[in-house]
């Protein structure tokens, strides 16, 4: 049996309590995501991809099921946890359209993604300013390094680091969200349409980053994407969700060539 990073078991979810009126979004969804791989998650609009991420990251409750997460030394049922502990066990998330703390500076937006970014406990670090300052210096250096690696030496983000993040364009906000994820180490990244609405050149760069995080650090990545090309370049494996069920699983080429998928996406 192959090692998994996430095993979704018998997951059932509906958004209304009246089961007859609206069908279940997920009806006993069962799927295993292999560890150390990039997995593409495809599906039509409204298929439930984002909702699946929301359940995994504990922002939305489900009706039934388990989600087993392999933490390296033990298996944890994520459904028993709260949203705020996921970062601590190595799960990071990029949202579809919610990337920034608007009234914080670009730099603060990055720093907040760092390990221990709030101190061990805010009250204790309240009085340990010196130690905190040193840690912060390290975090700032890391932020600078990440931005340089991603966007080059004289990048917009670093030069305008003290501007409010709300001034960024939507594409830039998404990039900032991606850069923030790199501020700490993860075991699993959930990326919700990381390349939607960004420039083709930047899209290639993001694909490269995704591959690099995966190969150099062995981070498992689940990526929701509508763009065939992105899936082709980044994903080792791909699964297609249709009407709350897994309609097809396999290597990206197969999925993209799959008649059901082609019918849903291209209409042929």
């Amino acid at each position: 049996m192959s090692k998994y990073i996430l095993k979704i078991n018998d997951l059932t979810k509906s958004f209304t309590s009246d089961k007859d009126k609206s069908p279940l979004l997920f009806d006993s969804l069962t799927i295993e995501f292999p560890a150390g791989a990039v997995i593409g998650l495809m599906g039509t609009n409204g298929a439930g991809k984002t909702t699946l991420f929301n359940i995994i990251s504990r922002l939305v409750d489900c009706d039934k099921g388990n989600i087993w997460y392999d933490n390296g030394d033990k298996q944890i049922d994520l459904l028993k946890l709260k949203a705020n502990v996921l970062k601590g066990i190595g799960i990071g998330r990029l949202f579809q359209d919610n990337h920034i703390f608007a009234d914080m500076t670009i730099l603060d937006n990055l720093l907040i993604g760092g390990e221990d970014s709030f101190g061990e406990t805010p009250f204790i670090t309240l009085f340990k300013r010196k130690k905190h300052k040193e840690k912060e210096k390290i975090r700032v250096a890391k932020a600078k390094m990440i931005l340089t690696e991603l966007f080059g030496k004289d990048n917009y983000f670093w030069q305008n680091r003290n501007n409010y993040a709300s001034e960024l364009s939507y594409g830039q906000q998404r990039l900032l969200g991606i850069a923030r994820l790199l501020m700490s180490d993860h075991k699993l990244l959930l990326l919700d349409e990381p390349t939607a609405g960004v420039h083709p050149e930047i899209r290639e760069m993001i694909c490269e980053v995704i591959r690099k995080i995966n190969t150099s650090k062995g981070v498992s990545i689940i990526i929701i994407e509508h763009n065939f090309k992105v899936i082709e370049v980044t994903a080792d494996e791909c699964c297609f969700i249709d009407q709350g069920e897994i309609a097809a699983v396999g290597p990206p080429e197969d999925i993209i060539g799959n008649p059901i998928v082609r019918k849903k996406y291209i209409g042929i």
Partner: protein
Amino acid sequence: MLLIQLLINGIIMGAVYSLASLGFAIVYNTTKIFHIGYSALYMIAPYFFWQLYTKLGLNISLSIFVSIILTMIISILIDKTIYQPLFIKKSSSNVVTISSIGVVTIIVNVIAMIFGNETKILNSDIANTIKFSGMIVTYPQVYQFISSIIIIIIFFIVLKKTNLGIIIRAFSNNDVLVQIMGINILRTRLLLFGISGIMIAIAGLSISYDVGMDPYIGMPMLLNVIVAFIIGGIGSFAGPLIGGFFIGVIQALTIWMFSSKWQSAITFIILIIFLIFRPQGFLGKKEREV
């Protein structure tokens, strides 16, 4: 001369409005709860003090300290037992606001039942005053001003310089993302309600020490707080300060130009003018609209 005296009074009152409004903003900016229950806390703090100081004969600083702590605990309990369960059930903000009105009603009735409806005087001495070049400031006014300013300053140091400040700013910006960043917002809320409770307790104590209290002082104060909060700019933390001093000074000018009876009316006229011409307030964020 009278004008300057009134302006001084206005600025002192403005400091108290600022503090009270800041406590309201701490709750609203993060949780988006229109915390009407806040008005009950303004009233209950001096009643705790009255019980401890006048009835039980504790010394004054201990009485002040304990009544602030008790008010803080009630503030936390309101969140824990009423707002948080509604939040977890994902109730609409209308439901939360209505339950908040319920909180006030209950607390006001309980206090009226226990202590009676009549006005209670906390400090029956003729207030000592400080006179300088014809101006008069009473000692209670000095306490009002200094305690408000100190608490405001402490809060802004915490907000700008500490990890807790980052959490508060991040929380008020984006309550979903902040959870993904590792913050337990339910626990943070308790802390914020505690801070907010301390602020309104100090405002309530310092005003009631000056002019006494009855069970119904909360609502008029809340109206000032809300107006200061709105014209200062919803969502910001500096807004309540600007709004608070603005209201304080305007009300002083109202006394000068018309009479003190017009204070509330003028306050609301200002609110309406703001809502029409500058709904985002002095410091409101300019959202990206398109």
